[in-house]
């Protein structure tokens, strides 16, 4: 998946859960990471916040899009 698209989707997911201001902060952070690191970061973050099972579901949707 193209990195820019991945960042856009990951940021969208963060915005939906934790608000736009949080998403903007992560957008900047993600631009310095590789695709794998972005996915790992978002799965780790979601796992901690929404729980491991829901995080898996959310990241699977993110990758499938």
């Amino acid at each position, binding site marked *: 998946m193209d990195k820019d698209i991945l960042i856009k989707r990951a940021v969208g997911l963060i*915005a*939906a*859960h*934790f*608000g*736009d*201001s*949080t998403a903007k*902060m*992560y957008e900047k*952070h993600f631009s310095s990471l590789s695709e794998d690191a972005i996915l790992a970061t978002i799965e780790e*973050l*979601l*796992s*901690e*916040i*929404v*729980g*491991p*099972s*829901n*995080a898996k*579901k*959310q990241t699977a*949707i993110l990758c499938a899009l």
Partner: protein
Amino acid sequence: MKKFYFILMLSAVFVVQAASYTLINDEDLSARAETISYLLPPLIAVVCGVFLLRFFNIRHGRGLSLSLIVLGLAGWLLGEVLWVLFGILDINQTPSIADLFYIIAYPLMAAGFFMEIKRGKVEWTAKKALFLLPLLAIGFYFTIVYGIIGAYDAEASIFENMINMFYGVGDTILGLLVAIILMIIWEYRGGKIFFPWLYIFMGVILTLIPDILYAVYFDAYMEGLSPYRYLDLVWGLSYLFFAYGFFALGQLVKDIQNRISVPPPAEE
């Protein structure tokens, strides 16, 4: 504000409310203290909700669902203010325009919680159905029998009966919300967001129980008889749980933001 001080403040508000209902012997002073302490919890809940919304864009995502829930609570707050005002001015408290604000809150909150289900990708599984359906059946039985049928008063006007039954319908929606929030909590188990939703769930449960009792013991409550007048304390507690749920959710978002705003340690 730190969690400890916030809990301390909410506890103090509840203690003041409980004291104003139980400890003051002077009738005038008691009435005034009850009025102020009665309005404090819903006001705090709405203020906490508005503070939480500053993290979100209220046009989409969790911001939209939370804003609908907060709007519902604001409806209840307006209803409470009008209820108290009509009481002071010796105007009929129910049926009145206050009822409109109370009733409008139910569909608003329902919409907010339904959106939350959608965002959480919460799925209806056989295991969940097995657990939730009996609870839903019991909840519906109580709300329909006591909230709708029990609220019917042969001596009251059609309009009054309609208002009372609308509350029953609202409580049925609230019962459905309880099931929805249980599904949300179930989905988020193991995650930090589980707890704010648990507090909000407590807020809904503690609204539903006195709502049903209010419909059943309407006359005794309106006459200010004990223990029915203490229903106000349970409603007060429910608002404080909503407030704490919003506060905890805000703290969680703040925590996530702080984590990213702290630069990672430089690699050697």
